[in-house]
């Protein structure tokens, strides 16, 4: 299917993409990421895990907001017809906001910001890679669903995907990572009780 080929409207993938992408998907991705971020700090033995996790949620929110701004601006400038409105080689609708995909881009931004944060993580980083996996899966699923729905061509969703990733990565990089305040770390946390890179033997229980 070419980038400008007509495509019939399909309601089911359109409705599902409202859940996996755009505001619905962003809410799901951000909540899942917040939960995993709290898990990250809990596993690292940090007091006030929910408070620390909000820092990452703020980066998520800014990534999504900036991406929406960029995407809406590009939609107004490019004026591209949606595939469902192609009829006999012409656009039959005044709605010409196909490029880039506004459902896909915010999910790409979430995924990229989560990727940058996970790549810079220390401590139990598997939680953060999990959050990245969820966001990236939602972004890819949304891109496929938007094409299936006839709402976008492949080039629209590819543009949204790439723009979202670029903006999300830049927003995350603007927030330099810093270590948790040692005063907020519980004594006996696994990572501090065991020597770096060595063999650890721990004892626990009531005697």
């Amino acid at each position, binding site marked *: 299917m070419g980038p*400008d080929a*007509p495509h019939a409207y399909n309601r089911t993938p359109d409705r599902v993409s409202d859940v996996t992408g755009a505001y619905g998907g962003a809410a799901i991705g951000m909540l899942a990421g917040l939960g995993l971020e709290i898990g990250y*700090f809990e596993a*690292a033995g*940090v007091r006030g895990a929910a408070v*620390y996790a909000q*820092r*990452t949620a*703020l*980066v998520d*929110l*800014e990534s999504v*907001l*900036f991406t*929406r*701004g*960029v995407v*809406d*601006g590009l*939609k*107004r*400038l*490019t*004026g*591209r*017809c949606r595939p469902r409105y*192609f009829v*006999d*080689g*012409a*656009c039959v609708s005044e709605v*010409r906001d*196909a*490029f880039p995909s506004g459902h896909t881009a915010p999910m790409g931004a979430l995924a990229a910001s989560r990727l940058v*944060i996970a790549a810079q*993580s*220390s*401590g*139990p*980083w598997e939680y953060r890679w999990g959050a990245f996996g969820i966001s990236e899966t939602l972004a890819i699923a949304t891109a496929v669903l938007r094409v299936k729905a006839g709402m976008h061509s492949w080039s629209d969703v590819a543009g949204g995907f790439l723009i979202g990733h670029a903006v999300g990565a830049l*927003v995350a990089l*603007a*927030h*330099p*990572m*810093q*270590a*948790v305040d040692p005063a907020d*770390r519980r004594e006996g946390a696994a*990572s*501090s009780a*065991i020597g770096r*890179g*060595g*063999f*650890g*033997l*721990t*004892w*626990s229980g009531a005697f």
Partner: protein
Amino acid sequence: MSVACPSAAQDKGAPNHPGYAFGTPAGEALFMIAAGLSNLTSYAPQRSTGWGRTRRTRTIGLRIG
């Protein structure tokens, strides 16, 4: 008693978190405001560029009368 295997016992370092944008609270505030204001682009007028036509159609006819 619990015995930690070498891989589990490997220290992954101190946990970290994203700091303020550009390292300062003011940077974070400005960043958040800019992110919100960027959404004003949705109020810009929609251009119609013609992008998206599969082919350009041209009507060639003969006017009679």
